[in-house]
Structures are given as C-alpha cells and as structure tokens.
C-alpha cells in the first residue's frame, strides 16, 4: 500500500467517522419525562417509539407511585433544574408546580394543532388550570382517571342471592346508587365463614390512600374540605355533613376483610382479584388488570361501575368522588421546548391517543367521543359517565402538607384511635394553621353551614339520579 492509498484510506475513514459522529450528535436530543411507573408510562413509551423524528428520543425517569413521585418533581423544581423536560403530575399538584411550569396557553397560541378545544373543558380545567377558573393552564389532560366501583357480577346476578336479599331487605339486589344501599348490600355479602366480605376500600396512612376514599363519602354527604373563598376550614371540614360522610366511611370497614383499615390500592386489588369482596372502591386505572384472567382469578365475574352517591342530612342526593389521573406539564427550565412542543403535537393526535386509550384513559375529546372507544372494554362507558361526578382536593400550593395532615387524622379515625368528629376537628385546626402560616387570610363568617355543599358550588339534587 503506497502513501497515497494510505492517505486516501485515512481521509475516507475520517469522513466516515465524522459522518458517524454527526449522525450520533443529531440523535442526541432526549426528552426526559418523570411519571410513576406503570401501564400508562409503558404505553407512552410504546407510542413514542414510533415518533417519526428519530433524532428525538423519549427517555422515561420512572418513580414509584406515591410521595417519591411528587418529591422527584418538586426537588427538581426547587433547584430550577432541567433533569427532566416534562412530567405527569397529579391534578392537585398543579397549584404547587405552576410556578415552575410552562404556561400551556402560550403553546396554544403558537401551535397550529394544540388548541384548548382538543380536550373536554372540564378535563382541561381539572388537570391543568390554576388558579381555578382563571383560564390559565399548566398541564394537558394526559391521563384521566376516576375512583370507581368494582363488583362481583356473579353474586349480583345469582338468583338465590337475589331472592335472599329481597327477602331480607324488601328490595331488589342491584348495584347500589347510594352508600345507604351499598351498606345493606355489603352487610348482606359479609360472610367471614365463607371468606367473603361485602366492601373493600382504602384506609392506609400512606400518600392519599385513606382520604381518596373518605373524601368520596364526605363530598357525597354534602361536606367540603374548606371554603375556597374565605379559606375557612373549621366549620367546613368538621361540619355535620362532613362528619356524616366520614363516619359512614369508617362504618363501612365493618364489612371489609380484617385489617383493611390499613389497606392501600394494592391490597384492594388483591381482594378483588381473589374474589374476597363483593364490592370495592378502586381506581378505573386498575380495571384492565382486574379484568385480565392472567392476573385475576375472578376476571370473568367482575363488573365495573360508577361509585354510589348519598342522601345527605338535607335530603339532597349528591354523587361526588375523587378524581385521579395526571396532567402533562412542561418544565419551564427545560431547554428543549421547541422539540417538546413538536412531540406533543404528534402525541396528542387521535391516532396516538387511540393507542393510549386501549390501555389507559386519554383526555383527547375526539377519542373520548368515539363509539369505538366507548365499546372498547367493559368499563369505558362507565368511565365516561364517572367524569361528570369528579371532585378534587385543594388546588393550593400547600396541598402536600394539607394532604399529610388530613391523611394522619382520617387514618386515625379509620383505625379507631380517634372519633371521626375529633379527627376532623383536629384536621381543621391543623389546616387553618398551615394556611395561616402560608399567608392566607382566613375570613371568618358569622356562621358555618350544616351542609357546606349548599354554599359552595352546590350539586345536591332532589332525588337519586341513577347511573350504571
């Protein structure tokens, strides 16, 4: 090999290397997201693999569901870091994270595709609006969820059970529309000698376990967590209607398996999958696996519905339960907003969201309104009904502290170490202290309502409005 050939080879090699380096550098745009691990994160990753711009790579930074997930996002925002570019956070965290998130309104203005009318207004508000009613959004409804009812249809449809129930309670055995009905059904199916219990619900101290369930009772009985106008908590959280609701929640543990006052979502899932309970409060998120015969022994015997409401002390019927799911927010310290906007414009196309909706709950209106989606499985229809009855925690930056305080008190009430009245009074005391420390001015009214819902966006109706 002469010198010239060697030179040619060297130049060719260099050119090849330069090309390789250039292409490698081109493929180096990574968009990192934080979310709790699970099916929905898997679905996002699965879809992202088909993103046409191969120079952009979507990288998951998955954390467990619970406080770690919140802390991961909060700690990065605290240092104004860009370790992740976007994140899925709980709806109630929007208030806390808004100061560190890109205002989605700016993206709506600049983008040709991403517009508010792509999403149901209620969903957009629920997963991204802060302050409430302001029209300012900090997240898109990436993953919707609702607290729901799972029940053993084999028991509810059994002629012998139906007959026995009618003989005992004087009415037909049916999916309960009110918690008062649910109590009867739960009592009827509570047969410890057969290993069967009537009702499963969360009661654990961790994260939002106990309060997710107890709030659903509290709101349905006409209670409220606070007055968002005056920031009063005393007289609202511990109002007679709130106490009615939480007392009913605590009483329902009588029909649950032993030890269920400590349960979180996983124990509830296990009870459902083992056929241990006739009814359970559980997130729609888990219906896919609970209906999967590879996971659930009772998959073919389960049905899914909307949670009951309650007739409150004012005679009004209310059906209110906890919202789940997450909005997709953008880290305002990220330096990759143009690439991320392009990705989001692609990701929120119906084609991608249909794929997502096959395993999780999308927030895209075009998919939610399609009959194809409604009939995709045994719970989407009920889920679309459930969206009308959702309520949420405080939309305040102090949410994590308020949640922890309420969790402490409600789980104590569930465990029986405090009366419900005492627990709610103590929680109200703590909450007002927390709000005052944060600088809120509590404007105390002359009196507080017996049924707070009557004065705060009332939803009470004169008669039971059946669903399911």
């Amino acid at each position, binding site marked *: 090999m002469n010198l010239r050939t060697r030179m040619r080879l060297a130049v060719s090699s260099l050119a090849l290397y330069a090309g390789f380096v250039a292409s490698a550098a081109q493929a180096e745009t990574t968009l*990192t997201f*934080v979310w*709790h*691990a*699970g*099916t929905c*994160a*898997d679905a*996002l*990753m*699965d879809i992202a693999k088909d993103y046409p711009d191969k120079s952009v790579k979507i*990288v*998951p*930074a*998955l*954390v*467990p*569901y619970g406080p*770690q997930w919140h*802390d*991961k996002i909060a*700690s*990065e925002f*605290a*240092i104004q*870091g860009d*370790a*992740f570019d976007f994140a899925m956070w709980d709806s109630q965290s929007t208030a806390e994270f808004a100061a560190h998130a890109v205002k989605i309104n700016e993206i709506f203005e600049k983008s040709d595709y991403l517009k508010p009318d792509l999403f149901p207004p209620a969903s957009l508000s629920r997963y991204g609006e802060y302050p409430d009613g302001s029209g300012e959004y900090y997240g898109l409804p990436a993953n919707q969820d609702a607290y729901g009812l799972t029940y053993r249809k084999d028991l509810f449809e059994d002629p012998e059970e139906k007959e026995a129930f009618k003989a005992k309670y004087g009415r037909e055995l049916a999916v309960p529309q009110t918690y008062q009905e649910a109590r009867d059904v739960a009592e009827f199916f509570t047969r410890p000698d057969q*290993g069967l219990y009537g009702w499963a619900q969360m009661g654990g101290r961790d994260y939002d376990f106990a309060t997710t369930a107890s709030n659903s009772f509290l709101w349905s009985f006409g209670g409220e967590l606070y007055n968002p106008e005056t920031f009063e908590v005393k007289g609202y959280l511990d109002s007679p209607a709130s106490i009615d609701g939480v007392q009913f929640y605590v009483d329902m543990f009588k029909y649950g398996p032993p030890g269920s006052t400590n349960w979180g*979502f*996983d124990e509830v*899932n*296990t009870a459902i*999958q*083992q056929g241990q309970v006739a009814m359970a409060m559980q997130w729609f998120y*888990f219906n*896919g*696996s609970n209906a*999967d015969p*590879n*996971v*659930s*022994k009772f998959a073919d015997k389960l049905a899914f519905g909307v949670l009951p409401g309650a007739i409150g002390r004012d005679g009004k019927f209310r059906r209110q339960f906890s919202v789940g799911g997450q909005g997709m927010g953008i880290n305002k310290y990220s330096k990759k907003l143009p690439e991320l906007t392009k990705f989001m414009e692609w990701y929120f196309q119906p084609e991608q969201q249909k794929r997502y909706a096959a*395993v999780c709950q999308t927030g895209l209106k075009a998919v939610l309104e399609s009959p194809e989606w409604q009939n995709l499985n045994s719970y989407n229809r009920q889920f679309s009904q459930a969206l009308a009855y959702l309520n949420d925690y405080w939309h305040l930056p102090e949410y994590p502290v308020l949640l922890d305080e309420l969790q402490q008190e409600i789980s104590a009430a569930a465990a029986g170490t405090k009366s419900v009245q005492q627990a709610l009074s103590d929680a109200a005391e703590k909450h007002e202290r927390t709000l005052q420390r944060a600088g809120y001015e509590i404007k105390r009214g002359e009196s507080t309502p017996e049924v707070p819902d009557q004065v705060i966006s009332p939803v009470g109706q004169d008669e039971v409005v059946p669903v399911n």
Partner: protein
Amino acid sequence: MNSSRTSAFDHAGRWLIFALLAIYTLYNIGPVFWLLLSSFKSRLDLFAMPPKLFFTPDLSGYESVFGVGAAANNASSVGVLDSLINSIIVSVSGTSLAVIFGTLAGYVCSRFNFVGKSDFMFFVLSTRMLPPVAVLVFYHMMFARLGLADTRFGLILVSIFANVGLATWIMKGFFDGVPREVEQIALVNGYSRMYAFTRLVLPMVKGGIAATAGFCFIFAWNEFAFSSILTTTQAKTLPVKISAASGATGLEWTQICAAGVVLIIPVLVFFYLIRKHLLMGMTFGVLGRR
C-alpha cells in the same frame, strides 16, 4: 445414677439449644426463602390461600428484572443491568474510599492527640446524625450546580460522606485495641511510623477493616434517599430502580421479589469473600485476641 441423670440433662440441654438455634435460623432464613419462592410465583399464586409451596414457576419477575422476554419493551420493567452496574460501582468505590479514609482517620485519632480532637470526633459522628431528608435539597442544589447530579461520581461522593464517619469511629475502636508497644518497638528498631502502621498494625486490624467494609457496603448498597433524588436516568441504583416496580396490577410483587433476590446476591458474595475476617471483626477483635 447421678451420672446418667446428668448425662440425660446434658442431652436434653443440647437438644434444647439445637431447637432454639433451628428456630432462630428459620426466623432469619425464612424471609429469604419466602422472597426466593415468591420471585417465581405468578400474582395468582402469590396471593393464593392457603399459600402454595408447589406451583408452576413463573419467570416473568426475572424477565422483567433483566428486561428480557415479554418485559423487554416495558419502560416499567426494572431492567436491572444498568442499575446493577451503577450500584456495584457506587458501592464498591464508595466503600473502599470510605474505609481507606476511615482507617487513616481512625488511626490518627487513636494514636495522636491534637487540638480539637474530641470536637473532630463528634463532628465526624454528627454526619450520621442528620436524616438524609434534612440535607437532600442542599445536596441536590449543590450537585446540580457542579454537574454531579445523575452521575455515578456524585453518588460515590455521597457514599463516602455518609460512611467515612462510621468507618472512622469503628476503626478507631480497633486501633485502640492494638497495644501502642507494637509500634514503639518498631520505632525503637529504626522502622518508620508508616512501616509500623502498614506492616504491623494494619494486619492486626484486618478483621476490623473487613467488618467496617461490611457495614459500609451494606449502607452504600441499600442507600435510597439520596439516590432517588440525585439520579434521574443515568445513575439510578438498584434499590431506586426496584422501588419503581409497579404496573397495571399495582405493585408488581413477583418483579419486586425477583429484584430483591438479585439485590441480595452481591451482598452475599461480598460477605462470603470476607467471611474469614468477619467474625473477629464483628466482635470488635475480642475473639481474635484470645
């Protein structure tokens, strides 16, 4: 008669001791056995009542842990390899350096008097008094500014900071147990302090070094709080990765148990390697000086 009664008592006593030891062993091994068994059970078998001892093995937990088979494309599967490598590098480096620094500091504190010695010893110990969460945000800010966030080097530094105090105190205890005359004889015979330290004193405390390394390694290997906040994608360690093992069914217990088995294997290997020195080290030299 008396002799046979004594013999019977001895016999019964021996059986009692064996029985107690068997119960104690079962108490310790039981959870590990349960973990191992559960790592091969499907979710259906995991929660079956009564619990199943015999079942069709399900490898999905290990598939998920190693990111192979059906779990190859799941972002939520643990995908242990990267995080295992991270854990090994961080723990081994962090432990080695902490033990080296701790040994040197322990020797100095044992043999020399200097101004503020007791304050220094208290300061060193105080680094273990703070709960990690109290300093997490400051570490996070500092590491982000220095470009150490989400890097193995950053975690190694954390591991050293966290363990060097413990190592110093433990090693000081071991050096205190070595008679000063050992070095004095060497010095009188013209050997240097370094020679006395490396050739005479260190071999006498190698059991202590092994025990200290064992403690530090366990702390470093299981460290969670700092790793969970300081890492995002690149430097995630195994405990952090395992904690995110949740899926459609909620907590993926099969996957968590499989990852738990994988997590304890390196610790077992490490302790197997240092087992000869460990017993003496764990008793802080008492057995070794007999």
